[in-house]
């Protein structure tokens, strides 16, 4: 057993867990945040993607919780703390970027990281950025459109302010 303390979405979560506890299970079972899903369970599908230390997307099924001791993790629950959707969530809604929704938490988190790193990605850059995430419903086109819409929405306030 090892004592692990991780800041998840701004809240410190501490627990004694087995050394072999994977980060995704720490998030779901210790922090009770079940938005982060377990999919392939073998780092292929990306549904378990969370952000490490603010902007680094990682597959939480392929990290031991102990490796993240003392660090910050951001999960999908942080995107809309109130009732207003995050621009990416709104865009997935508007563009029908999900059907069953199982892959969506991972798609959203990797998109958050992508847009932080590259606020105006080309379609190819989006497709490459999402290439570690699998979706068996949408055929990806609407997910790409959603990320494009979010990129526009997220840069829009700056433009609006410039117009004033």
């Amino acid at each position, binding site marked *: 057993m090892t004592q692990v303390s991780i800041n998840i979405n701004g809240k410190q979560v501490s627990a004694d867990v087995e050394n072999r506890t994977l980060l995704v299970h720490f998030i779901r079972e210790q922090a009770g945040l079940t938005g982060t899903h377990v999919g392939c369970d073998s780092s292929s599908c990306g549904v378990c993607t969370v952000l490490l230390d603010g902007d*680094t997307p990682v597959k939480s099924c392929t990290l031991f919780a102990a490796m993240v001791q003392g660090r910050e993790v951001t999960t999908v629950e942080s995107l809309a703390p109130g009732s207003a959707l995050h621009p990416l969530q709104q865009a997935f809604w508007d563009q029908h970027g999900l059907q069953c929704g199982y892959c969506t938490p991972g798609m959203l988190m990797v998109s958050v990281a992508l847009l932080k790193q590259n606020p105006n990605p080309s379609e190819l850059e989006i497709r490459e950025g999402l290439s570690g995430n699998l979706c068996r419903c949408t055929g990806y086109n609407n997910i790409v459109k959603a990320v494009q819409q979010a990129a526009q929405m997220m840069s829009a306030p700056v433009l609006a302010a410039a117009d004033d």
Partner: protein
Amino acid sequence: MFPANFEYVRTHSADEAFAALQQHGYDGRVLAGGQSLIPAMRYRLARPAVLIDINPIKDLEYLREEDGFLCIGATTRDAALEFSKVVLERYSLITSVSKVVADPIVRHMGTVVGSICHNDPAGDWTATALASRAIMVVRGKNGVRHISIDDFLLDSYTTAVEEGEMALEVRIPIPDAHTQGSYQKIERKVGDYATCAAAVQISLNEDGTIRDSGIAITASGPIAMRVSAAEALLRGQKPSLELIKAASLEAPKIASPNPDQRGSADYKRDMTRVLVGRGIRESLERLGVSL
């Protein structure tokens, strides 16, 4: 799928990690990015008794040019190379491989040194290290050893790192202005093991003849392999389509791929020829050679 349990040792310096390796001997295993080791543990293909976590060692996370080499530390992530300005400007082989290793998320955790030490039969970095003639820096009981990549890669999942030793760094010779490379990979989908891949680097003399080359294939046998016969064929020659064809025909002669869902052995063997040919051709194009 849960891995078997293990003892976990978190280390904050190379000295601490090395001491832990001495203490645990055969039972100890270094945990870097874990992107190969953790899945292997989950499938119970690996069952280390003690994991020595080197991720917190900030001193080993670096990428710098020094004494004619690009030095990559043991905890430097694949993504650090992918987004490095220095790498993008001067290292065409590394630039082309760093975009196709695993997938973009895995590249944020996976490490170059860890991948070479894992020595997967389908490893991208092992083939790249062969083509670029890398040197591994390993700390052992009697000090630091420098091992050429050819002597480092012994067999599937087996390297020259001995019990109680630890790889600290990989050094890649800085390519001069007359050196270019290319990485060619066939994969079913992003993140899958390569169906077949080839790493190529070519250096030209002032007169346009080939001074030297590095050619390696991976996912084509028990280990990434140097195609020495192709390198020998190219040396001193003027580039031509006939020469590329002759060199690429050497790759299938040493390939011994396993048939699987990715393709038959015959198909994969023939792809070593195709990819080596494409790699040589693209390297020459990047050198401004018109064929």
